[in-house]
């Protein structure tokens, strides 16, 4: 059974002047555990909107989303929130760390909404995860004292502390230089592979996209697999499986 299935999903918004803006049209996508999916697209093509749908924080205007065998139309309210907290880990476009809180507190945030062992041992778990992303010595630093790459690693640690089955990364390298970017991506790839989680990376960087096993392009709200010809151009030598 697939972890996440999108069937003919559309998303449109009401514009202030009247009329509708169709951001996403007819999206079909299936993601299995362990998949690494990349989605590229120009700015404004609807990538972040799609990520919201994949991450259960938004509802499609039409079509169907099935998460872990459950049609999301039937999972709402608190159940949906808890499901998202347990199974989805977000890495947002602009990090979205909580200002004023230390790296440790930021990484602990998702564990506040967990129960039992994860809640009570939240400090240990978050510390271990920060050590794993190489920030073991920066636990008490607030975001304004961290470089972009370090902030991104805190965001990654935060996304991973609950051991999600689906990791969603929106432009995880957008704010980073090329070298730091690929180091961060490698880390994310490695952690996802180790836990068997599905990883969906949204990016406009072809190099980053090429690290994924399954590649898609979002164009004017339409999602298409990247074909072999594109792949040959985009992928660095030996990068594709």
């Amino acid at each position, binding site marked *: 059974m697939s972890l996440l299935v999108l069937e003919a999903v559309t998303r449109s918004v009401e514009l202030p002047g009247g009329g509708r803006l169709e951001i996403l049209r007819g999206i079909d996508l299936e993601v299995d555990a362990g998949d690494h999916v990349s989605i590229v697209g120009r700015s404004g093509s609807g990538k972040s909107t799609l990520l919201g749908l994949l991450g259960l*924080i*938004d509802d499609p205007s039409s079509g169907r989303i099935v998460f872990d065998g459950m049609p999301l139309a039937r999972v709402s309210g608190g159940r949906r*929130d808890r499901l998202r907290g347990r199974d989805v880990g977000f890495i947002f476009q602009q990090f*979205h760390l*909580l200002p004023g809180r230390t790296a440790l507190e930021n990484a602990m945030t998702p564990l*506040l909404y967990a129960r039992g062992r994860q809640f009570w041992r939240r400090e240990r778990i978050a510390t271990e995860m920060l050590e794993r992303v190489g920030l073991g010595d920066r636990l008490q630093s607030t975001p304004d004292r961290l470089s972009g790459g370090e902030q991104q690693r805190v965001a990654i640690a935060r996304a991973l502390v609950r051991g999600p089955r689906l990791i969603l990364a929106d432009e995880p390298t957008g704010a980073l230089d090329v070298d730091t970017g690929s180091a961060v991506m490698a880390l994310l790839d490695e952690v996802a592979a180790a836990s068997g989680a599905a990883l969906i990376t949204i990016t406009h960087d072809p190099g980053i996209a090429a690290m994924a096993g399954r590649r898609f392009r979002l164009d004017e709200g339409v999602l298409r697999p990247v074909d072999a010809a594109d792949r040959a151009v985009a992928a660095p030598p030996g990068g594709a499986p």
Partner: protein
Amino acid sequence: MIGALVEAWAEFRVHRARVLLSLVGVVIAVAALAAVVGVGSIASQAQIEQLERGAGRPATLVLNPPYDPRTGKQADPAKLAAAFDQIVERYSITYAGSVLWSGGQAQFVDGVDAVQLTVVDPAYGPMHRVQLARGDWFSDRDELRLTPALVVSDAVWRRLGSPDLATHPTLTLIGRQPTTGVILGVLPPDPYVGNLQAYLLGSGYAALAPSAAPGASPLPMYEFWVPLELADPLAERIRAEVGAAFGEGWVVDVQRQDYLAWGAGDPLEPVRIVLLAIAGLILLLGALSLVNIALVTVRQRVREIGIRRAFGATAPRVFLAVLLESVVATVIAGFVGVVLAVILVQSDWIQGLIAPGLQDAVPFPVEAAVIGLVAATGVGALAGLLPALVAVRVKVVDAIRY
């Protein structure tokens, strides 16, 4: 719930400066509230004790000497005393005794002066909350003394030159026969009545009484300290028994005389109500500024709330966290306010103002502290409600785009 509390505490720490500033009003209001309640209950406790010293503790029944309106005859003292003994025995009344006020004169070094005499039984002490500045109240053994025992007012004691009670100072009372009594105890100075006053037991009074002949001297009244709920039936029984002892036609008067029976209102009530209203207004203003600040910050924190929601915080959880954040803050403010109120109310200056003449400092009333804390919690919950409602309405996607 625990998670929400942990979160609220963390939020409070992060926004400490802003929160603390907004709490100044709450601190002041709670301090004022607790102080008013505290002062009020100390003052009314002092007042009640004062009333109890005069009229006895609730419920005190008093039996006035019976008389026969047809002949104008007074009761025979011996017969009355026998009836009293019988009642005390039959109803197992632990605290009961006779009280007789009488004028008297005492010999001081600088001459003779009028002294107000109160002839009592040892039970009068506990029944009237008699507190002594020095020495002891009468015990049952004092009835058997050869030299009568006395408890005198502060004014008498000073008049005697403030003697050490260990030296067994005496006072000579002038009556039918001059009687020298030894002073056992001294009452605290009383700012309201700075008079010359002495308590003595019935045995000591015998020699002083104007005449031993029946009808020649005033009769004592008898007091009974009984459980509140038994006061009415017991009054009825005492009336019946004494009536039976004296026979048809005699008027027997048994009354409650403690302050509860008078239905006396608290004379400080109006002042207290005004002060409470002022404190309530301050609290309201504090709450309004809290709401204001909380609303502004909730708008700033929409993004944060969206992030938390994305990581699994449910809407009720966010509601609770925002609400608790406000409550945690105001409870702390309330605690500070209560501490301030305690310091203020316990200061010598205030104590001297509200309860002059009290020997021991009255402890800060628990109910004042509780009321202060409850008010603070309530204000916190009210002030947190609006921002908490805003917080749950946040749509996660929009908040994150923000």
